[in-house]
C-alpha cells in the first residue's frame, strides 16, 4: 500500500511536470526575461549581465541546420553590425539538441561561426532549458529585450523581416523597426509577428 502511494505520488509529479511543460508557452511582450549563462563558441560562458553598457538585446534562437536560419545568417550579422554600437547587441542561441541534430554540435557551431565570421556570441542551450523559458518554438525566432529597472523586458517576439527568400524584396524589417522604436523612445507598431521556421529538435 505504501509502495502504491509512493507510486501514485511519483506519477502525479511526472504527469504534472509533463502537463506544465505543455502549458508553459513562454514569454509574452511585457514579461521580464530571466538571464542565462550559456557556453559560447569561444569556450567562454556568456550572460546578459556581462553587458552592463547594453540598452537591451536582440536574442535570436537560430542554428546551423535550418534553411531559414541559414537564409537569415547575413541579416543577423547585419543586425549586430548596425545595433551593437547603439546598445542592442545580437545574442544568438542554438536551441537544438546536438544528439537529435548532429549538424548543430558545438564543433559544428564553431565551424559555422568561423566560416561566416559571426561578430556576436553564438551560444549553445545545453540541456535545453533556456528556449522553453522564452517560448521559442522554431529557428529563427527573435526576442528583442530592453533593459528596464526590473530586468530585461521583452518588447518584440517573432520574425526578422517579411521575406526569407529575397533580402532585396523585404517590405517590413520587423526587428529593425522594433529596435529603432526603442532607440527613439517610441512605441513598437508590430510587437509580435510570425514566420515559418524549423521546429526545435529535442
Amino acid at each position, binding site marked *: 500500500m505504501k509502495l502504491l502511494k509512493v507510486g501514485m505520488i511519483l506519477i*502525479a509529479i*511526472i*504527469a504534472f511536470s*509533463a502537463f506544465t511543460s505543455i502549458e508553459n508557452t513562454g514569454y509574452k511582450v511585457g514579461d521580464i526575461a530571466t538571464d542565462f549563462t550559456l557556453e559560447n563558441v569561444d569556450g567562454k560562458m556568456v550572460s546578459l549581465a556581462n553587458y552592463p553598457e547594453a540598452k537591451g538585446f536582440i536574442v535570436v534562437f537560430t542554428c546551423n541546420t535550418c534553411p531559414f536560419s541559414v537564409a537569415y545568417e547575413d541579416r543577423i550579422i547585419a543586425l549586430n553590425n548596425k545595433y551593437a554600437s547603439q546598445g542592442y547587441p545580437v545574442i544568438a542561441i542554438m536551441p537544438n539538441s546536438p544528439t537529435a541534430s548532429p549538424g548543430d554540435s558545438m564543433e559544428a557551431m564553431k565551424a559555422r561561426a568561423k566560416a561566416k565570421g559571426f561578430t556576436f556570441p553564438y551560444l549553445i542551450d545545453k540541456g535545453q532549458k533556456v528556449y522553453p523559458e522564452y517560448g521559442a*518554438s522554431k529557428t529563427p525566432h527573435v526576442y528583442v529585450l530592453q533593459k528596464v529597472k526590473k530586468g530585461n523586458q521583452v518588447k518584440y517576439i517573432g520574425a526578422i523581416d517579411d521575406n526569407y527568400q529575397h533580402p532585396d524584396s523585404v517590405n517590413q524589417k520587423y526587428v529593425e523597426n522594433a529596435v529603432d522604436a526603442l532607440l527613439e523612445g517610441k512605441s513598437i507598431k508590430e510587437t509580435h509577428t*510570425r*514566420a515559418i521556421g*524549423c521546429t526545435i529538435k529535442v
Partner: protein
Amino acid sequence: MKYVLGTLFVCVLLFNCDKTKNENELTKVEQNDIQEKVELEVLDFNMLEPYLTKEDNQVYVINFWATWCAPCVKELPVFEKLHSNYKEKKVKVILVSLDFPKQYESKLIPFIKSNNLQSQILVLNDTDSNTWIPKVSEEWSGAIPSTLIYTKENRKFYEKSFNYSELETEVQQFLK
C-alpha cells in the same frame, strides 16, 4: 482527483509508448518504374485558401511540410498511409510543401518521385508568412511539421509530429 490522476497516468503511458513505435518506411520504387512527369502546383496563399475552407462532406487533412524539414519527412509515411487507408472514406489528405523555389527541381520533384507520394501535393510559395500563418490558424507559431484537420463544421490545428495511431484517432473524431 483519482480520476484526474488516472487520466494523466494513461496520458503519460501513451506518450511514452508512442515514442517506441516505428513507422513504416516509405515504399521506395525502382527508378525505371517511374514514367510519370511530376508537375508541381505552385500557389500563393490566396490560391491555397480555398483548399483550407472547403464545405463539402469530406474530412480534410492538410499537412505543412518541406523536404528540408527532417521531422516532416519522417512523418510523411503516416499521412501516406492515412491517404491509402481512408481515401474511400471521405478523407482527403493534402501535403502542402513549403520548399524553396530554387529547390523545386533539385530536391522536391526528385523526392516526390523517389518516394512515390500518392497524396495530393500543393506547393505554397508566399513569403509574407506573417499575413497568412494566422489565417491557417491563430495557434500556429510557424514551426513545421504542422497539420490542419477540418470539416465544414469543425477545425483543429496541430503544431506537432504525428504517428499513425495518433493521426487516425484525431481523424476518427472528425468522422463521427
